[in-house]
């Protein structure tokens, strides 16, 4: 599976926490989620390779693939990321 960032209206990072404006709603991301999102661009990347980078940055996730899938699902639900097979 591949993922990439979706465009947002605006974003700002304060003390490691990113706030994004999606449509007319703002959303504050936790520091780990901010870091994970920060590794994505508008280019499609393999989700496994991306998550390896995330773990390199933040340390290994205790739940492994479950954490990865949960993070991707949360970012997709927030309209910050899109995925394709």
């Amino acid at each position, binding site marked *: 599976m591949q993922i990439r960032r979706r465009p947002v209206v605006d974003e*700002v990072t304060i003390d490691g926490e*990113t*706030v994004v404006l999606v449509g007319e*709603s703002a959303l*504050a991301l936790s520091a780990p989620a901010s870091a994970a999102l920060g590794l994505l661009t508008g280019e499609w990347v393999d989700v496994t390779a991306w998550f390896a980078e995330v773990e390199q940055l933040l340390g290994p996730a205790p739940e492994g693939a479950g954490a990865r899938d949960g993070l991707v699902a949360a970012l997709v639900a927030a309209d910050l990321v899109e995925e394709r097979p």
Partner: protein
Amino acid sequence: MTEAVDITALGVPVRLEPVGPYADEVRAALARAWSRCVGLPLLPWAAVRDPLVIRAELLDEGADERDDTVHARLTRSGESALAGEVSHVGRHRLDSLLTAVTHEVTVRAIDANRGCLLMFHAAVLADGAGRAIAFIARSGTGKTTLTAELGQQWHYLSDETAAFMDDGTVVPYPKPLSMSRPAVGLKLETPADDLGLLGVAPARLVGLVLLDRRASGPARLVDVPAPQALVALAAESSGLVDLPGPLRRLAALWAALPVTGRLEYAEARDAVRLVRDVASLAT
């Protein structure tokens, strides 16, 4: 023909035109309700445009095809919009019309300023030194009550929509205050004069405060981390997405202002005392 009432709403010229069989009565009510907005300065981008025109009309019962449920009507630019489908008679139908006018003026003034002003659902008042604080909250959560209390000592600039230029200058909108009257099941547009609120004065923003009215407890100003503050501010903003770099702009503003936080309070009087103390320390 009954004379129009020309006002300035958020720096935008608006012409309220009373029409219909009760035009004189409507004009008198509009002039009284909107007296604080007469003669206010226009914003540069609004000064060159024709005024927004809103026609306000009270109808005789049965004068509309919708018969006895429609007693007031607003018209704008060839469109027709019903002010309210109310079954009340007598004075209530004028109240419904005034409420609808306030809503219409506010919405259209906000639209006219999209992309130009930072605007919040907020009351804004300023002390004698021109230090203004915006009290941000959803409708029905205490803005107007706090305004009525603080406005006895501070200049009343708005009870619902706070607007600012880039340099923090407040664009006043001292509209009639929309006060709930549960006894009649309506919000009544109450002229600021009736409440004894101090008049408009030049002011610059020194504070953004998120209102949090509670059932009990003392008034206190609680720090809010910037990310959470931005989420709350964005939720209570108007036209934010039309501004360039809207979140960065909000973040810079929140960081630069000397008075920020969440104002927890139960009694408006306690909140007023705290606000006065806090503002006096702002430079």
